[in-house]
């Protein structure tokens, strides 16, 4: 107790924590007796590769599906996409993930049920994305993790398309004789990217921070699994360090999202403020 400083009053402990944290030290793990932040950073790559893969999946599939559903809202396929996205929202994540394991790992035996698989180092980054075995391992957890975000992207894209299509500038683009493909991919898409980027940015923070369930189900050796283990061992400094890291990351992501706005929407660029305005 004494060695860990747990005998002191709680406010004293807090001030010591704050003083150390400001110097970049968020404490040592009770269990491993190593700096908590090192433990987390060691697991960060595994979580990042899972979150990034899930995010890419959500966008690569979500935006085209949302575009289709927005362009053809009355068609059977369009309705099915929208109905499917509701499932993506409302089915509990852990149930879907266990079902994925049941179907693809147990019944069909196509993909491994858990673990990270082989890793390889490329350009100084060690990741399971660089080996075939690793890729096979990441498919199920990444799919499971991406479903919610994908459903969100689908609904946002389709709502954006339906809102943008009746605008005058779309009609004008058609009246200019542009091909339909250009009208959709440039004139419509660029206008609806702003809400998508906002949500995707915030979702990415969420994906990284809350992979806890996914990592537990697929026994993926990432930060989320570490968090659950630390909670079980009452390893408080690791939990605190985790929360500090995730909070910092959210701030960072919000900043990036704001900067991306300026790239996407000329109206929010400060340097252009001298225009005639509307």
């Amino acid at each position, binding site marked *: 107790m004494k060695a860990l400083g747990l005998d002191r009053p709680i406010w004293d402990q807090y001030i010591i924590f704050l003083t150390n944290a400001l110097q970049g030290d968020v404490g040592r793990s009770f269990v491993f007796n190593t700096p908590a932040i090192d433990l987390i950073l060691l697991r960060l790559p595994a979580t990042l590769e899972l979150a990034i893969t899930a995010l890419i999946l959500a966008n690569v599939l979500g935006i085209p599906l949302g575009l289709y559903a927005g362009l053809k809202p009355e068609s059977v396929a369009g309705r099915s996409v929208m109905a499917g996205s509701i499932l993506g929202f409302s089915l509990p994540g852990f149930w879907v993930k266990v079902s994925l394991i049941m179907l693809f790992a147990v019944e069909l035996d196509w993909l491994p049920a858990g673990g990270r698989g082989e890793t390889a180092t490329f350009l100084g980054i060690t990741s399971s994305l660089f080996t075939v075995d690793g890729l096979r391992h990441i498919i199920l957890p990444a799919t499971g993790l991406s479903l919610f975000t994908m459903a969100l992207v689908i609904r946002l894209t389709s709502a954006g398309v339906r809102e943008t299509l009746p605008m005058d*500038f779309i009609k004008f683009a058609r009246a200019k004789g542009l091909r339909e493909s250009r009208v959709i991919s440039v004139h419509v898409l660029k206008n609806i990217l702003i809400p998508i980027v906002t949500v995707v940015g915030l979702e990415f923070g969420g994906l990284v921070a809350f992979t806890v369930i996914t990592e537990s189900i697929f026994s993926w050796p990432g930060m989320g699994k570490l968090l659950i283990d630390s909670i079980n061992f009452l390893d408080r400094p690791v939990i605190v360090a985790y929360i500090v890291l995730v909070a910092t990351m959210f701030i960072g992501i919000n900043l990036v999202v704001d900067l991306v706005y300026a790239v996407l929407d000329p109206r929010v660029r400060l340097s252009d403020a001298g*225009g005639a305005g509307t």
Partner: protein
Amino acid sequence: MRGKILGLVGESGSGKTVTGFSILGLVEKPGRIEQGRILFNGSDLRRASPEELRDIRGNRISMIFQDPMMTLNPVLRIDTQMIETIRAHKKISYDDARVLARDALGKVGIPSPDERLAAYPHQFSGGMRQRVAIAIALLHKPELIIADEPTTALDVTIQAQILSEVQKLCREVGTALIWVTHDLSVVAAIADQICVMYAGRIVERGSTESVLDGPSHPYTNGLIHSVPGNNRPGTPLQQIPGVMPSLLSLPVGCSFRQRCRYADSMCMAEPEFNAVETNRDHIARCWHPLAEGRPA
């Protein structure tokens, strides 16, 4: 007719804008073109394939919209929006297209077009944006421009400038113009011919002087008399009583009969176009065409 200006007049909801969109095949669903022909240089545009129609749009027929604040895509630069129009119809390099775009901006009176090309729509005023839209419409020296109330959203001084400039540019290029408006004074100033629309139909057509000086349809007559300039100061403005019927439930026969003071049992049948006695090019869809302001 090449180089001629047609004024398409009517009150809100009379079908002027839809007429413009129909010509370009841009009627929005669930609307569709039921019947008839759209003749352009002798060929029926309704028979054109979607790709042929696309190539005609912006190239041989272009359109200027009503609200310049809404016609340019807010997130694309002016040069992008002009160059894509050029390259949709002509195989030329990006750089050559940019030069064409710059010249086009200069022609519609935008100062320092080189710098303005890289600007975004929100950096332009309404009048400037409409000039950009006009420059885009003129890029391919079209045979026809459909201008859908292009000056309605602008203030009066800019209105006059744009009006005279479009007229000048069309004359230079030999472009025919359909000027859609509810403003008779604009039409009087620029149009060679006038079509008056009511409830989705053309009710009177003729040369500008002929129609404005001797309107044959009671509706046209009513329109002319409701312009303040035609009344003695101090006297109440003449109005056309009632409102236009909904296009979904048009009355049997002449659609204007419920508001027309000359209506009688004859008007229960739909009137055909009839030439006005004095001028064979001046026609009206009425059973009781006016002559000198009175039923003949």
